[in-house]
């Protein structure tokens, strides 16, 4: 048991040193490698509401934290979370979203989402939306996500 504690201590110290090095010296920054996977945005009308969803995939041993989001379709792009509270559906802006090491974080309907508030133009099926995410480490990540109805919402019934 002592050995494990010692090992843990060494590991933590090692990590602490790594992150300190990153901030104080001009070495190759050690940041998490996070990618945006399976992104999509809901179609919407100019001046109304839309949202973008994706999965953040962190394949490294380093955690990071999402701190802001922006997009090319709306100057008011926010990180939100929907959840149930006392029998009501509630939506809250999120100051940050932790992305743990070797983990994925789902942005999906009924949960975390990137709010595209009052887009300047219609967001039509077949278009794409540029989403840019900024992390606490300073790293930014961008992706073009396709605009489409939610999965399982193929509009075949209208012969569209």
């Amino acid at each position: 048991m002592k050995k494990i504690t010692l090992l843990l201590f060494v590991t933590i110290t090692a990590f602490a040193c790594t992150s300190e090095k990153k901030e104080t010296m001009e070495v190759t920054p050690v940041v998490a490698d996070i990618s945006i996977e399976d992104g999509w945005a809901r179609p919407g009308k100019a001046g109304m509401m839309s949202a973008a969803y994706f999965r953040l995939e962190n394949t490294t041993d380093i955690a990071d934290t999402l701190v802001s989001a922006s997009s090319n379709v709306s100057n008011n792009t926010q990180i939100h979370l929907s959840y149930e509270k006392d029998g009501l559906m509630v939506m809250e802006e999120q100051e940050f979203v932790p992305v743990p090491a070797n983990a994925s974080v789902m942005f999906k309907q009924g949960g975390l989402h990137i709010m595209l508030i009052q887009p300047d133009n219609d967001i039509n099926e077949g278009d794409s939306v540029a989403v840019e995410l900024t992390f606490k480490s300073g790293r930014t990540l961008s992706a073009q996500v396709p605009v489409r109805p939610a999965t399982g919402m193929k509009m075949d019934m209208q012969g569209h």
Partner: protein
Amino acid sequence: MKYLPLLLLTLFIAIGACNSSPEVIDDLTDRSFELVDQDSVEVTFPDDYKGKYVVMSFIYTNCPDICPLITQNLIKIQKDLDNPDVQFLAVTFDPKRDTPETLSKYKSVFHLDENFNFLTGEEETINAFMDSVRVRTQVSLSTTTQDGTELYFLNHSDKIMVMNPEGKVIIEYGGSQPSVPKLIVQDLNRLLK
């Protein structure tokens, strides 16, 4: 303590009674609400829908996440049911902003047919309507947009209901859960037999 067996018996009878007769959740038969749809066509609810099963939900169009999810569930029910005699309604609880024009734009995003309509009305009427189906709302976060106008969001109940041809609500489920369309389709198929 000696009344306990009697109490239990009463409880069992009560539960039994609930299971055997079709349960009425909200009786709207003698209510009357003057509403308008997304094309500004006036409707009287529930009278105009009597004789049909109505699947209905409660939304607002400034809702970017949950309400589209509820709308998608209604769409899925309509598609899987494939019965043109069933009416689908989404009633806004935000009539101040959800004018017929706004609802019309919202409807167009989802490519819906004439059996799927969005309803709004005078604020007072909508409030009374929402009370009658026990839909609660409260203003939650508000944010200021670039042009300086206040943009608010609403916390709200999340449900889909089925009203029978007489105007009685007989089925109620959570609105946004992915498991709900299947359950409602099963229930309706049984009722429509």
